[in-house]
């Protein structure tokens, strides 16, 4: 009833190219933005900023990075955490090599270095596919972690390989408080999402999807496979690199190479599998699921079951519930949370009528 497209016509070419065609969608987006920038910083508390919102945003961004590569361009990767690590350590190192480098620029620079590394590890994708490519990106994962641990140069001579965030100053403003770190993260994450949402609808995005669906056919109709795949690796790694810098600087404030280990890569992969491959919104949904569900389970079990079971068993029980929920969910909706969302949207168009 409220969500109808009837009567909304595109009268100009520009309008036809919009990402959100319906005014209801645009209104919802503006309301969300108002909530995120205006209301949340006022009503949120330290716990929400530091433990929920910031990791949620950073992991959404990491999910987006991998989704461009895997969900849109069809190249499987298990090296996400490695590219995040490259981004984090590169922005840290560049802050010292070029004193006075603005913080936001160092995020970008970290992303650029990660993109370069991504291209190098993306080269095998021209010859190998699927699971074999997965193994070669796995090499990136182990190599980067080893390199950053082995050579103290990357962590500025810190023998134990730990880096800490510089003061979070942007144009003279200190974003060091929890609310400030949240706003900073949001302001970096959002433009990248806008960029990506437009990118996947551009000719490059369409090339990616053509390569994903059948790269031989794509080559036959004249899509340059080499360029398309390498651009996917570069852009995906750029976004992962920025996510890594945010993880180190605005979320944790300190990080060691081991913080970007294989399990982080798996975490990012689960985000896009649960959220939805080849979907922009799915990254947010998947990240929310991965970040929130364990916390909800832990708080619930802490308040409901504490005293009934020993603390150690309670933890294992949570893991079991989490695993069961994921399995059930993937059986019920193999295409991820974004697909569920699409289903609800289709129903909303007809509501209150039934299908």
């Amino acid at each position, binding site marked *: 009833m409220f969500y109808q497209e009837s009567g909304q016509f595109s009268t100009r070419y520009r309008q036809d190219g919009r990402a959100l065609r319906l005014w209801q969608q645009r209104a919802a987006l503006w309301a969300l933005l108002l909530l995120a920038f205006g209301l949340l910083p006022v009503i949120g508390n330290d716990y929400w900023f530091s433990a929920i919102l910031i990791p949620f945003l950073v992991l959404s961004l990491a999910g987006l990075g991998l989704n461009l590569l895997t969900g849109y361009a069809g190249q499987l990767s298990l090296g996400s955490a490695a590219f995040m690590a490259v981004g984090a350590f590169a922005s840290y190192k560049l802050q010292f090599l070029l004193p006075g480098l603005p913080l936001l620029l160092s995020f970008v620079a970290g992303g650029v270095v990660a993109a370069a590394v991504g291209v190098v590890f993306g080269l095998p994708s021209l010859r190998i596919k699927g699971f074999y490519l997965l193994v070669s990106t796995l090499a990136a994962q182990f190599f980067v972690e080893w390199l950053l641990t082995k050579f103290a140069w990357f962590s500025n001579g810190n*023998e134990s390989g730990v880096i800490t965030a510089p003061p979070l100053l942007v144009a003279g403003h200190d974003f060091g408080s929890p609310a400030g770190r949240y706003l900073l993260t949001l302001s970096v994450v959002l433009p990248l999402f806008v960029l990506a949402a437009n990118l996947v609808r551009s000719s490059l995005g369409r090339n990616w999807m053509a390569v994903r669906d059948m790269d031989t056919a794509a080559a036959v109709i004249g899509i340059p496979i080499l360029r398309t795949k390498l651009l996917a690796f570069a852009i995906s790694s750029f976004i992962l690199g920025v996510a890594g810098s945010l993880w180190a600087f605005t979320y944790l*404030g300190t990080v060691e190479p081991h913080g970007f280990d294989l399990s982080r890569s798996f975490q990012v992969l689960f985000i896009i599998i649960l959220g939805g491959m080849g979907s922009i919104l799915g990254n947010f949904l998947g990240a929310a699921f991965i970040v929130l569900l364990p916390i909800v389970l832990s708080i619930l079990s802490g308040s409901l079951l504490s005293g009934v079971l020993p603390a150690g068993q309670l933890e294992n029980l949570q893991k079991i519930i989490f695993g069961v929920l994921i399995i059930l969910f993937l059986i019920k909706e193999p295409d991820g949370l974004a697909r569920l969302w699409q289903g609800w949207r289709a129903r909303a168009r007809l509501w209150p009528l039934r299908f």
Partner: protein
Amino acid sequence: MKNHLHTLKGAVVLALGLAAASATAQAGGEQYFPLQSYRVGPYAAGGTGFFGGFIDYLQYVNLKEGGVNGVKLTWSECETEYVVEKGVECYERLKKGLNGAPAAATNPLSVGIAYATLERSTADKLPLITINHGRTDSTDGSVFPYVFPLQLNPYSEVSAIINYIGQKSGGLSKLKGKKIAVLYHGSPYGKETNPILELLSKKYGFQLVSLEVPHPGNEQQSQWLTIRQQKPDWVILRGWGVMNPVALKTAQKTGYPADHIIGNIWSNSEEDAAPAGAAAKGFISITTHPSGTQFPVLQGIKKTVLDAGKGNLADAKRFGTVYYNLGVVNGILNVEAVRLAQARFGKKPLTGEQVRWGFEHLHFDDKRLKEVGALGLLQPLQLSCADHEGGGAVRFQQWDGQQWKVISPWVQADRKLLRPIIEDSSHKYAKEKGITPRDCSKES
């Protein structure tokens, strides 16, 4: 119907009244300890022992003395699995206190979590206790006002080991020409002390052989073959978890005597030695607290807490083991800090800032140690504004195949030598972060 309504109303009023009463009773007199514990995952053995001992000690203070000066101690747990992000989430969840009881200090027992919450806890004015581990330069309290690597920081650890080897060889001057190998875990923790060992080797003229064992450390054949070729006089084992028993077993296979291997502070528990079986017999390690149940405080805990069925350990046999006793020692230090702070700020629940004052004024001499029943369990300790470590001494223990036997008195680290290095590092940190160090001469 009216009657029913009346009863219902009465019940609601009663319930509200009770809730209000209990809320005020709690807020009135409790001091809270947020526990970022880990009871599952690869390091569960350490976590369950440490937090078991810590909780049992808090319970003991509650049951025996009714809390600290009448202020009951309370706590709640949040599982970290030793994972940094989970530790941060737990920190943020628990830092505000519980039912109005303010938090006294956080004790994560994890290097990674300690690093990640270091700046947060400083901003939140909540002491961060990293007993026997943590960031070495946080010993300098003028730059790190809220961080306390109590008893022993990593630099003191290796310095004390070298001093012990010196004693065994008949004086530090005899170290010249000796060969010492260090077998370290390939992680930030493992590498932390390498620069200090190099410095000490230059100072005393011994030859240092550094060998890295990649994580997790279940394959050490080539490292021990190198040790066999090089024939070092001593091997320092800087291990963690599964790496320790594997090192002992491989040493036996390659014919290196276990009684010339010295384990560091995270290679010193029953869980490190026992799995190696006969190969561990004779293995030496350092400890800041002997295992055993003979100390009065442990006897007290056994009588008041364990025998009353209120103990925290799932496996009662672990009572008095190294990790458990470390938890008890940690409890003694935390409670003493609260006690000292109460003497200054009043006998009520205190804020983290006030408890920090207590930590900075911790002072344990033999008399006080006797009073709390921990003579021989805890080393004499004095903290100050500038010195957040306080002790820097270890004892050496040897595994007899069944249990640890203490074989040395307290061996002191060369803290005078280490202090300038620590200050260099802390001042570098202060400069990076734009911190102006406190003037410790003005602190009371």
